[in-house]
């Protein structure tokens, strides 16, 4: 076994869907100065929009 680095193991790339789930769905729930007002944004709505956008992107041939 080799050490990826002296500080710790190199971490793997994370899929966008997993990253967004974690960055919007969990993570430290913390009230930044602006997060209180942001609470009005429906995160489910954001996901829905992201979903629609990604489905559209799939329809574009690569």
């Amino acid at each position: 076994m080799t050490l990826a680095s002296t500080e710790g193991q190199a971490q793997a790339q994370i899929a966008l869907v997993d990253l967004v789930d974690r960055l919007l769905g969990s993570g430290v729930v913390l009230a930044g100065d602006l997060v209180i007002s942001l609470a009005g944004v429906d995160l489910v709505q954001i996901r829905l929009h992201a979903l629609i956008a990604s489905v559209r992107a799939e329809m574009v041939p690569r």
Partner: protein
Amino acid sequence: MVETGRYLYAVAAGLPGGTVTTVAGVGNAPVEVVEHAGLQAIVSTVDLSEYGEEGLRRNLEDLAWLEETARAHDAVVRTASEAAPTAPMRLATIFFDDDGVRRCVEELDDDLRAALARVDGRVEWSVKVLASRRPSSAAASGAPSGGADYLRRKKAESQARESAESGAVAAAERVADAVAAGAVAVRRLPPQDPRLSGLEGTMLLNLAALVDQGDSDAFGARMDELADAEAAVSVAAGPWPAYSFATLETR
């Protein structure tokens, strides 16, 4: 004059100086560290027309913006988390200035330290279990020869479906047990839509596992062994920063 705010990526403990200053933040801004009471708040400056309430409302619905911001956020968090225990913040946690950042770190001090202790020396793995696509019924092809044959086929199909379902559930249980055995903590996340995940089949489990760094390779190998069961497929990914385990208790 452009109004600016401070974007908080994460709070770390014992982050060596210069660790994150080499990585670009959101909007390519230089990343800085605000020290407070022995903790390091990792921040960069953002334009409030883009990251203020109104801007965020608009931008969070823009997938390209969301991806760019999330990727930049992740790059900063992983650089920090590879060097020191790091508690990642939610996307777009914005303060008006460094005093706001310090006040927040001060207020959450106990919770932050508890979260940092929880993720210290640990990484996150994602393990998802998906029901395999049912093979088309093994029943005879062609038109049923009569009412009795039709009913027989219906019954066989329904039995095949039930056994596939219970097989998938049993396979998911086995994976969940193996995850629990190899992890320090496990969280169940909501299943993802296949159109979002790009994974075929119904997602039965979407687990986040907190794993000791020293056990990470073995955990990944164990998950690979389990990947192909008869009735279900599991997909493991990692190691990642411990995003799902730095959550503060709700207050």
